[in-house]
């Protein structure tokens, strides 16, 4: 469904992506892991052109385009097929919870208001916020805001949802309510690409795990293989540091 090949991206002299390929089939949950600065977020942002790659090819269903020379029209079409969940939610501060979810439908996709409200209410019910539809983002907790962010993403029924560290800004108590919803989406077969530092969650929901370091994909495969028997030294080092180890001798 979505295939991108040989993505390069430089910020000034700093090469953030050095030729990355990703292949996503319908229903896949691709989790991208890796240390900070490895290019995970940049890769995700290049997929819907929040950052513009310097080189790379994209095949997304019927669209086939060069990522560095995509026209405004192509970019908008790709964005209409995707949804993005931000680390710091980025809810529209001047809109209520309901308007946040309907904005992408009414303004972005010209869907009639009644239909948009129906879709939005369904999405909000799914994330358990039916009782908050008329609140403003500033009146919600971080976890609730991120759940609105997810409702905003699923309401537009995108082909793929991109998650950029959706729980990094949340405290531990609120993380589980957000991860629970993402897990439910995964079980329903929603296609997702998720950048996260939550290892246990990654092992649970992923159908495919990608480990990135220094702008390259070091290793990828089924979660079981990556987490239990990583082939590369770099992956082993990373997992050893981030996974809790039982190292007590009694």
């Amino acid at each position: 469904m979505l295939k991108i090949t040989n993505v390069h991206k430089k910020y000034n002299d700093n090469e953030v992506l050095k030729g990355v390929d990703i292949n996503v089939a319908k229903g896949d949950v691709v989790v991208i892991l890796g240390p900070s600065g490895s290019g995970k977020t940049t890769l995700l942002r290049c997929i819907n052109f929040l950052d513009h790659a310097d080189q790379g090819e994209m095949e997304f269903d019927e669209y086939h385009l060069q990522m560095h020379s995509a026209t405004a029209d192509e970019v908008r079409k790709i964005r209409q097929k995707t949804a993005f969940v931000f680390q710091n939610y980025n809810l529209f501060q001047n809109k209520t919870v309901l308007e946040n979810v309907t904005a992408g439908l009414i303004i972005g996709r010209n869907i009639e208001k009644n239909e948009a409200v129906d879709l939005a209410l369904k999405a909000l019910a799914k994330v358990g916020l039916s009782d908050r539809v008329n609140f403003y983002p500033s009146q919600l907790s971080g976890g609730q805001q991120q759940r609105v962010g997810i409702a905003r993403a699923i309401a537009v029924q995108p082909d793929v949802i991109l998650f950029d560290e959706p729980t990094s800004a949340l405290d531990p108590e609120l993380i589980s309510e957000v991860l629970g919803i993402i897990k439910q989406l995964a079980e329903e077969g929603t296609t997702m690409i998720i950048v996260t530092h939550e290892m246990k969650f990654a092992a649970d929901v992923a159908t495919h795990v990608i480990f990135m370091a220094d702008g390259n994909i070091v290793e990828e495969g089924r979660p079981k293989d990556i987490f239990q028997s990583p082939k590369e030294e770099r992956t082993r080092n990373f997992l050893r540091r981030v996974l809790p180890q039982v190292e007590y001798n009694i």
Partner: protein
Amino acid sequence: MDINYQFLIKTFYLVLAAVPTTLNITAVSLLIAMPLAFYLAVIRLRPGKYIQIIISGYITFVRGTPIVLQILIIYSILPSFLNSVAKGFALEVNVFDWNPIIYAYIVFSLNTTALLCEVFRSALASINKGQLEAALCAGMTTVQAYRHIIVPQALVVAMPNICNITVKLIKGTSLAFLMTVKDMTAVAKIAASYGYNYIEAYMDVFAGYVIVCSVVQVAFAFAERHVGKFRFIK
């Protein structure tokens, strides 16, 4: 000190009758300046070296000169300039017959544009970049994102400053008498000149501006609450 109360009251009505002229100059200047200033502010937030230098040069010029001087320069230079341009194109217009209020519009619009540009620029820059990104991700065009998401939020930030500039503009229009426009100040001065009742006339003008500016400030306070209702709910 004797105060001629009869003159005081009579002139006060004259001043009140000239309020529409003052508000007219203010409103027209704002209506011209707002879209221009917004457009310049958007340009200022984008890359592009030469256009930046031109705009910031213009702003520096306006901010760095007294408005009296701007009025005197434009009122003395522009008519002759326009006249020679009209002659050059062989147009049958006599710019010296124009209502002097047109020059008031020009001066105050040029002045207000520069001041508002900076207000809009800072207000737009205060909105988190994530708001634009989220709007684009929701499938909006950049124009839609500005219209529905960025501008409504920036407006709330800009409101107090827009109020400031508006009140300053109202007071600034008192200098329009230099261009023979009959605004509140001019009317009072003319009335006073017949019998040297300047003290009464100035008191009338004083009261007139206090009333007009107070009403405008109250109106802005309401407007601010209205456009910022998402901020004030707690």
